Every structure is written in C-alpha cells, then in structure tokens.
C-alpha cells in the first residue's frame, strides 16, 4: 500500500460516505498526514530502540525499508559547510550517502559532536573520506566535501520518515500497525462546535 492510498483510507474511515462537507473539511488530508507522521515516528522509534538494546549497529530488518532519495546540495554560509535538506529520524536508520553516479564514493557517517575528538586522532589524518553529520532537519558534510567540481545532487539511502516519502512510495511497515497508531490520536478527541452550544457533532 502506498502513502496516498493509506491516507485516503484513513480519511475515508473518519469522514467517508455521507458526512457533511463541514466535517470533511476538518479532516483535511494534510492534517491526517501529520498525525500519520506521528504514528510512523513511533514505529521507527520502536525499531531503533530494539536495535540499541541488543547492541546492533546495523539493523537487518530495515533493509527492506531503505528508499533512495535524491536531494540537491546547498551551501550554508554561516557554518561554511554544504548540506542537504533531509529529515533523518535516527542515524541508525541511515545506510548510505553517495553520489548518484559513483556508488563507491565513500561518505562516512559520524556523530555530530565527535569532530573535536576525531581531529586529534589519527583516523582524521589518514583517511580523507567525506564525513556526514546528521542533524535534526539537515544533513551536513564536513570539510572534505569537494569544492571544485562539487556534486550537485546527493543520493541518500535511508529509512525515511513519512514526510520524506513521496505519495507513490510503498509503506514497508505493516500498514495496520500504522493505521492503529494514527487512529490513536483521533479516537478520544472530537472537535467542539462553539456556535451550536452543547450540540454533539455527528
């Protein structure tokens, strides 16, 4: 099931059929998408904490969830680093960042606060791979990123959050689990109509 189908399924369940136009308007597709993102994040968190509990740096189960995403490279003047706009939920969910035409150009994922340590150790002097710093909504590249003939697009192979998926992307988690997680945010909360006092909405 792809993303668009799932969201219209949820919308159909909530306000499908003969509901009035006013009700349908309150359950706008973007609103449903936002709560579906919350549910999907919860599933990703369960996968990640399961991996950390058993000391798995690589999560074999997420290989099926890896999606290729292409992003253009931008430049941040304040930090002096190139970056791409990409939301990665957790660094264990990011498999690989490469150039689209050179899959063996190695980008190394490093922790965002480890740079002072690496600068002092020998690994930074011997290896000239490009480092990748995964921060909240952006992925930065360190000083080894080429400045002459700089690449314009980066291919990121990650397990994406729902916001990074296109409408036609397959959702790889069991879709009923995602449906339940989304509906949890809707179940107990009904919107109130203050104009018609005390009348329950259908």
């Amino acid at each position, binding site marked *: 099931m792809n993303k668009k189908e799932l969201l219209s399924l949820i919308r159909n369940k909530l306000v499908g059929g003969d509901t009035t136009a006013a009700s349908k308007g309150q359950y706008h597709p973007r609103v449903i998408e936002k709560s579906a993102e919350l549910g999907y994040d919860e599933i990703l968190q369960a996968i990640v904490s399961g991996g950390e509990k058993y*000391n798995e*740096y690589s999560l074999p189960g997420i290989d099926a969830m890896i999606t290729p995403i292409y992003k253009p490279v931008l430049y941040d003047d304040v930090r002096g680093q190139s970056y791409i706009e990409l939301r990665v939920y957790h*660094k264990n969910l*990011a498999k690989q960042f490469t150039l689209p035409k050179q899959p063996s150009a*190695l980008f*190394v*994922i490093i922790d965002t606060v480890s740079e002072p340590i690496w600068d002092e150790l*020998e690994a930074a002097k011997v290896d000239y*791979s490009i480092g990748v710093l995964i921060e909240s909504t952006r992925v930065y590249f360190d000083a080894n990123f080429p400045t002459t003939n700089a690449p314009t697009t980066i291919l990121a192979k990650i397990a994406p959050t729902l916001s990074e998926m296109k409408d036609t992307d397959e959702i790889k988690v069991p879709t009923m689990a995602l449906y339940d997680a989304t509906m949890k945010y809707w179940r107990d909360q009904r919107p109130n109509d203050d104009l018609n006092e005390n009348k329950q909405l259908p």
Partner: protein
Amino acid sequence: MEFIEHNEMQPVKPVAAGKSLRYVVMSVLNRVGNYSTNEYRRLLQLAIECVQEELSMYHATSLEIYYAIVDDTGIVQMPKDCIDYIKIGMNVGGQLYILGMNENIILSRATKCAQNVDDIARGGLSLFAPINGYSFIDHMSPAGLYVGGLYGLGGGFTDPQYRWDDKLKRFQLNGSALHKKQVIVEYQSTGIGAGTILELPIIAPIRDFVIWQRIENDPRVPQSEKDRKERKYNESIEKLRAYKNMFTKQEFLDTMYRSYKQGIKR
C-alpha cells in the same frame, strides 16, 4: 557476426597483494554484517592503533628511508613517524657508508638555533675535516698486494660521527664536513601514512584486533565473548610470529653446508 561462447572467460581483475588499512576496516564491517558506515571511523582508529602500538613495535617493523640535509648545527631531525633508527650514512658512489657512533658527543640543548656543537665543545676550534667528509686510504700497495698497516690508517669513513638523541628523535653530528650535505637514514617507522600498503600476513592480526576491541569496552557484551575474541587475536599474533621467523631455503642449505666436512684423503 561474432559468436561469443557462454563459457568464455571474462577478464578478471587481480586481487591486490598489498592492502590498505581501509581494506581491513571494510573486511571487519563485512564480517559483522554492518553495511552502513556509522562505525567506519571508529574501526579505522582501532586499526591504526593496532599497527602503531602492537605490530610496528614488536612483530612487524616497517623500514623507511629518509634523505636528510644536515643543518648548520649538525642536527638531523627525524620525521614524526620515526620509532628508532637503523642506519645513518653517506652516499658515496651509490653505496651507503655508515658513519661512526660516538656516545660522547655533547647533545645540543642550546637555546640559540645556530649554535654549533663544535664551538661549544672545543671552544671555537674545529678539527680538520677531510674533503667531502670521508677519507679512505687504500690498503693495497701499488703492486696490488694487501698491506695490513695501511688498513684503516685514514680513520676510514667514520669522520664525522653521530650520536642518537632518543628523546628528541634526532641525530647530533660533529664536524662541519657534512653541513648542508645529504645523509641517508634508514629507520623503523610506524608504517602509517595516507597510502600505506600492508603486506598480507599482518592483515589477519589487525582484523582480529579490531573485532576484539570493537566490543571490549561495551558493558552489554558478556565477558566470555570478550575473552574469546582476545584469545583469537593472540593466536593470530602467534601465527604472524611463526611466519616472520621462518627460515628461507637458502638459510637452511647454508646451515647444512656449514656442517659438511671433508674427510682425510688417503
């Protein structure tokens, strides 16, 4: 129309005999099944530490050559990857002539850069230095016969002399003959550089070291597992040591031949 048979051999890319540290780290990642790169730099650091601290010092020395120019104070500063020196000498006719060691040369700890050790030691007088820094008196007579008295008369080629300053990792030379001239130093190096090529026998110990150290400081891993990995690493080192200490065929034959005697001929 070309007909290509299905069992025609495709050109095969050769497997390299010299590997880099990066290869070792990739090999470890493959063995633990991690195909992302979030452990890469940490494992590379562990591999570097293994080569520097465990192998270069005790099991697999790496020999490097350094072509140095002696400065005005007679000091030859070794590069940063020098652990210990092996030879120092001059290039005479394409051969390395080793300098003589003199443990009594005063090591310069002078604060002024241009102070000459000779001036400090001898009050400004410097001994006569032969042309080109070496003197060699032929110990054959003009008729081509060996004359024992001439052997080493000129002092050989051990002027100038050197002393190794281990704390600052540099040579102190006396005599002014070699100032601004080139000396050649062979030394034991850490073996780590950007293009370091490792020989095949030391790949396995590095890999076992990295696999062990990867979990050594993790409190979630049981102690028995850590002990097992450490044992595996120690076995790799034993195998490397056995390989390095193997004698060659020529050495074996030499030993055999040395014991041969001829009996008395009657």
